[in-house]
């Protein structure tokens, strides 16, 4: 009888953020659906109440079904039978519960059988599911693909595929190939137009495909013969019912073992083009990746929450030298940092989700009427914010969740290294989050644009202008001084005008900015709930010290020594 939504009051707290009123207003467009659908909300209050009640179902299924199944799913894993993927028995039970509860197609419009949920509650559901089983969260979370079809595909494809998602069709995004990982421009899988059958045909191999044997797959393929870069790639939708794709193998992984990672062979597989030719990677996959990165953010926060809770529980139960280990500073410092970091990445997660919500809602409105100038500007500025916050979120949440899982296992001591407690699985599951959907290193490449363009600095200056309670004024002053120092560090590096040198320090610069962003977000949380004051205080003190260390390294580093770095291992 566990409920992973109601047992965590911080979730409801983020659901009630003041910006939600705007998001819901845009998303529900004056509650027009209430005339047509008996489950559509009647007003703002009613919408939040619906979010709340549906999240309660997510919390209950996560706590009572998915969580308890996680150990057996990790052990059993999926199998290949006759070239098809068969999920672990526990996964099948999870899916049955989640489909019966109507939790597929959450963000799709009602006309396609969806719930028309905003990103914030959808992302929250992803966080809750991930806390119970991060591997299962992938199978469930790939419903993001429906969003891409909804945004970019033709009306005909939408009508054919979207209603299936709400009935529980699973999805996959087939991007990676043996020689195209981080560098997707190198994708080789071939798409050729079959004039006789009036369909595209896919031929080639995909690798590391999460849930590769899904009902519906989005496939990135080379449609333009003779090209070798991104401009030759288009996005296709493939239906498993055509049975022209086989699963060659399932990878044996370190973690998220319940989620099948497949190698696929497409053999003259019929497929439909999504949107326009040549826009596959440039536009559609970029959008798909952004929502996938938001998804990994949610997954990371869920894993962090799970790891933290296991640690707190164990530290209270375990006694050494005559008292529970939670009483030793070496242990409680770890626990405290786990908690404040989880709070910090959660605030970053929902801030990012809100930005995405506003601009996506405008995009949907723009399909039915022309936006006025103010609306266009607002949509644009929120999209820019979302673009710079998404890599920040992916970077910080995944790195923190690994740190938190590491510390949680450490608190368990030798017991944590054994298979007896959930933490060893959580620790293994955490590891992928800094790697897939773009490694941490690639998130830095994306986020550094926000540093060099000055957008992040502007964001930080805007945050500084928000109201705070007088007693929190000292915290704001710390953040303002951190921002000043960040500005100096950026211009210090820019003065050298050396690309490799900037790249070398890029991660440090992004971390300086990200730390301040999260500091401000926690300070903002204090304005609505006093209980965040302690968290904000501890977090800001800690990241201030971390930033000083980074700044010191940047200042004392001699650019001429860059060559020495390579020499060390090439010698």
């Amino acid at each position: 009888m566990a409920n992973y939504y109601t047992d965590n009051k911080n979730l409801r707290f983020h659901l009630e953020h003041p910006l939600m009123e705007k998001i819901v207003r845009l998303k529900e467009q004056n509650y027009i659906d209430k005339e047509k659908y008996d489950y559509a909300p009647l007003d703002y209050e009613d919408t939040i109440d619906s979010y709340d009640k549906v999240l309660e179902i997510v919390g209950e299924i996560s706590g009572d079904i998915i969580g308890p199944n996680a150990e057996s799913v990790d052990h059993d894993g999926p199998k290949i039978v006759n070239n098809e993927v068969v999920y672990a028995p526990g996964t099948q039970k999870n899916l049955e519960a989640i489909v019966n509860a109507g939790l597929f197609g959450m963000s799709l419009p009602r006309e396609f059988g969806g719930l028309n949920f905003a990103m914030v509650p959808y992302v929250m559901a992803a966080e809750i599911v991930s806390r119970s089983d991060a591997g299962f969260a992938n199978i469930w979370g790939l419903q993001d693909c429906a969003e891409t079809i909804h945004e970019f595909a033709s009306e005909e494809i939408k009508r054919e595929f979207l209603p299936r998602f709400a009935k529980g069709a699973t999805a996959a995004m087939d991007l990676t190939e043996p020689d195209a990982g981080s560098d997707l421009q190198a994708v080789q899988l071939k798409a050729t137009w079959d004039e006789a059958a009036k369909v595209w045909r896919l031929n080639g191999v995909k690798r590391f495909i999460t849930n590769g044997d899904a009902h519906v797959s989005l496939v990135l393929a080379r449609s333009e013969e003779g090209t070798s870069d991104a401009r030759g790639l288009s996005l296709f939708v493939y239906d498993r019912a055509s049975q022209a794709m086989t699963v060659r193998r399932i990878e044996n992984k370190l973690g998220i073992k319940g989620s099948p990672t497949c190698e696929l062979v497409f053999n003259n597989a019929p497929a439909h083009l999504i949107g326009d030719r040549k826009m596959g990677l440039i536009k559609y996959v970029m959008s798909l990746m952004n929502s996938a990165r938001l998804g990994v953010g949610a997954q990371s926060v869920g894993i962090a929450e799970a790891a933290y809770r296991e640690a707190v529980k164990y530290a209270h139960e375990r006694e050494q030298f005559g008292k529970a280990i939670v009483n030793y500073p070496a242990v409680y410092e770890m626990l405290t940092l786990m908690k404040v970091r989880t709070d910090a990445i959660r605030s970053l997660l929902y801030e990012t989700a809100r930005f995405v919500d506003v601009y996506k809602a405008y995009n949907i409105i723009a399909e039915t009427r022309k936006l006025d100038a103010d609306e266009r500007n607002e949509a644009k500025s929120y999209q820019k914010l979302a673009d710079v916050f998404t890599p920040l979120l992916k970077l910080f949440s995944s790195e923190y969740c690994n740190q938190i899982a590491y510390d949680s296992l450490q608190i368990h001591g030798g017991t944590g290294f054994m298979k007896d407690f959930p933490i060893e699985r959580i620790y293994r599951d955490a590891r992928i989050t800094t790697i897939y959907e773009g490694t941490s290193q690639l998130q830095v490449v994306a986020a550094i644009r926000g540093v060099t363009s000055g957008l992040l600095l502007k964001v930080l200056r805007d945050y500084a202008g928000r109201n705070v309670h007088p007693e929190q004024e000292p915290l704001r002053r710390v953040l303002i001084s951190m921002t000043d120092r960040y500005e100096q560090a950026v211009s210090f590096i820019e003065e050298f005008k050396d690309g490799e040198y900037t790249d070398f320090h890029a991660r440090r610069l992004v971390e300086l900015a990200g730390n301040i962003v999260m500091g401000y977000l926690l300070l903002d949380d204090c304005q609505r709930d006093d209980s965040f004051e302690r968290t904000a205080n501890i977090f800001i003190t800690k990241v201030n010290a971390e930033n000083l260390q980074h700044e010191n390294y940047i200042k004392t580093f001699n650019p001429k020594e860059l060559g020495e770095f390579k020499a060390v291992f090439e010698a």
Partner: protein
Amino acid sequence: MPFRIIVLAKQVPDTRNVGKDAMKADGTVNRAALPAIFNPEDLHALELALRIKDQINDAEIVVVSMGPGRAAEIIREAMYRGADRGVLVTDRKFAGSDTLATSYALSLAVKKLAPFNVLIAGRQAIDGDTAQVGPQTAEKLHIPQITYAEELVDVNSKQITIKRRLERGIEVVRSPLPVAITVHSSAPVCRPRNAILVMKFKHARTTTELQEETKDYTELRLYRPYLNIEEWSVEDIQAETEKLGLSGSPTKVKKIENVVLQRKESKAFTADDKDIDLLMQELMASHVIG
């Protein structure tokens, strides 16, 4: 005429999570201290009803609960899982009813919903554990009954086939309709609440509940009649008052005791090889292990 399935459900104190103030000084249950829940076996009953509905075109599920005003909560809970509408049988005159009086009242409520095809209830409620209300209601309605149901084997508009869970095995029985069925806890667990149904039915209220709400969405109720949970009083079901409540209940509780189980016999073994061998032999002889 739709195929009508009536589910009898009871709101009960959650005796599985008993705290220290669960019992009053006089030994009766302190209902205020225990969370009120959907009686677990009635949820199994609802799942059986839903499975019948899955197989029959044009079937509807009506949930009937007898209890105080707050029992409307479990009617909504049933709607969130697929029930179509609900009736709350509620009146102060029902207070103190034993199983005889309760089954009398329920049978009258069910008659008011006639014609019906299947009547389903949980085997027993966790607060009383009598397992009498379902069978007694069937008797008063003069319809056949299948108790301890575990699985729906087959159903059509004329008859139903059910697998029963008995103490030493299973039994498959077929009955003409209408029939009463009581469902055992070994039957499939109830499906989860469904997101769309939750949003559709969350404003369902009884008239009494509506009087206590500030925002009642009155207009909505006019064109969504399923949002009105009916409340039936003694007059509505045309019951004779003397057959209800304490006067209609021959069961008299003489005494309530807090029973503490004590060990009756015990054997002591020391931790040497000989005693452990003896213990092993004994456990094997009694088939506890081996």
